[in-house]
């Protein structure tokens, strides 16, 4: 059966049986047009003594190849940024939830009870709190709030390295959120501007597509001053202009990587003109 296998080679071709590193590389980088009876060919060529030995080698090689590939993919900087921004959001959300609990609890014991993370922070540092558990819980809120702040400055430090143009236009936090929503900088670079415009407004978008609602004008890019600072009547235009520039920035960051300061000036001009429009 050997002659029909001339043009396609299995992953084990030319490898020493004990060379797991080489085998992993062959599995990751090799290719073939069509499958073949690889176990039989491997035994025939002397790579393995029998099927069992072949499968054992294959198991080891695929584990290593996939572990390496997963590791490389997950270590990519944009993926790290996604973890950081999600962790920041988690810390803020949990701090807020716990702060509510602290406020409710404190209200049952103290006359000066306030609300929010700020109040929990004062309580955490207040020596006069007579309940140890309440004071400790307030301390957790303070710690989580500190952690969220530390994560925010981490995001602000790393986002410009991952996506310099996008960060310059959107700010670090919004840039990180956009990347997180689609799963990576590459994915964001491949999205059309119209998609970037409504990222984070999926529920409204699908309601619209099913014919139940007007189309959403903006998703999370609403947090950008260019949208929020524009009169509601012209926000759609502002969001469209901003999304266009953001997706150009994401593409430059992913495919080219150099800084293009002119993008900021262009965005600034566009938004200024939109905001100068008359309001009825």
């Amino acid at each position, binding site marked *: 059966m050997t002659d029909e296998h001339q043009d*396609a*080679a*299995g*992953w084990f071709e030319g490898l020493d049986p004990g060379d797991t590193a080489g085998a992993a590389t*062959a*599995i990751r980088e*090799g*290719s*073939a*047009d*069509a*499958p*073949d*009876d*690889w*176990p039989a060919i491997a035994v025939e060529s002397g790579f393995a003594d029998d099927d069992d030995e072949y*499968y*054992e080698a*294959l*198991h080891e090689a*695929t*584990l290593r*190849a*996939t*572990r390496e*590939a*997963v590791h490389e*993919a*997950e270590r990519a900087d944009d993926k790290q940024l996604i973890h950081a921004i999600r962790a920041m959001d988690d810390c803020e959300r949990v701090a807020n939830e716990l702060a509510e609990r602290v406020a409710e609890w404190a209200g049952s014991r103290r006359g000066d009870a306030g609300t929010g993370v700020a109040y929990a922070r004062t309580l955490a540092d207040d020596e006069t709190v007579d309940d140890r558990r309440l004071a400790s819980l307030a301390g957790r809120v303070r710690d989580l709030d500190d952690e969220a702040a530390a994560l925010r400055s981490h995001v602000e430090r790393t986002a410009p390295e991952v996506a310099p143009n996008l960060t310059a236009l959107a700010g670090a936090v919004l840039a990180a959120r956009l990347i997180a929503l689609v799963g990576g900088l590459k994915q964001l670079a491949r999205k059309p501007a119209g998609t970037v415009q409504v990222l984070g407004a999926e529920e409204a978008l*699908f309601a619209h*597509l*099913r014919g139940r609602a007007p189309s959403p004008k903006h998703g999370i890019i609403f947090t950008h001053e260019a949208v929020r600072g524009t009169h509601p009547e012209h926000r759609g235009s502002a969001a469209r202009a901003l999304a266009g520039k953001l997706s150009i920035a994401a593409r430059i960051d992913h495919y080219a990587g150099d800084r293009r300061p002119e993008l900021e000036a262009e965005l600034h001009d566009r938004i200024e003109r939109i905001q100068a429009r008359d309001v009825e």
Partner: protein
Amino acid sequence: MSLPDGVERRSFGGDDEWLATRGEPVYGEPTDGEWRRWDARRSKLGAMFERGMEHGLEGGETVLYLGAAAGTTVSHVADIAGPTYAVEFAARPARDLLEAAEPRPNLFALLKDARSPETYAHVVEPVDAIVQDVATRGQANVALANRRFLREDGRLLLAVKPRSEDVVREPEAVLDEVLETLSEGYAILETRSLEPFHEDHFGVVATRR
């Protein structure tokens, strides 16, 4: 159709009977001795068994699994099948898939794109069954591209998610289109809704044509 060898219905202490296979637990599923529960609500293939589809599996087959994700279903498949090749495109779930593959000498995990079969044809041998559960547009084209792995008499067990093709149109209309594309390379034996286990999903059994 009866269950393949190695899949049984067991009670796990309650009144209900569940599908189960024997093997190392993977995702915190309930166990009973060496048996571990196979929840059809978490597995399209499990749902196809529960719905009584003509899956054609007897146990011991060589299997190519496309869209293995974290390895929930493919770990059960590997418990009952022979050499099982698991292809997953996303790195995060593949991390969990590795955990499932480690204790299973017949489960081969590959971080590859099922839309590009040439990137793993140098590893995967011809198989008796292809199980496909990919949530991407072009599900029929993925099946067609991977047809080269299926032996003459082998079966394709396909979970179709119309939502992945088009979120707006009627699921049935999308399914018809998927089946039409699919019939360029496959003869379709059976199509069934996977409800109540999976909403808006369909199971398809096909052979090569």
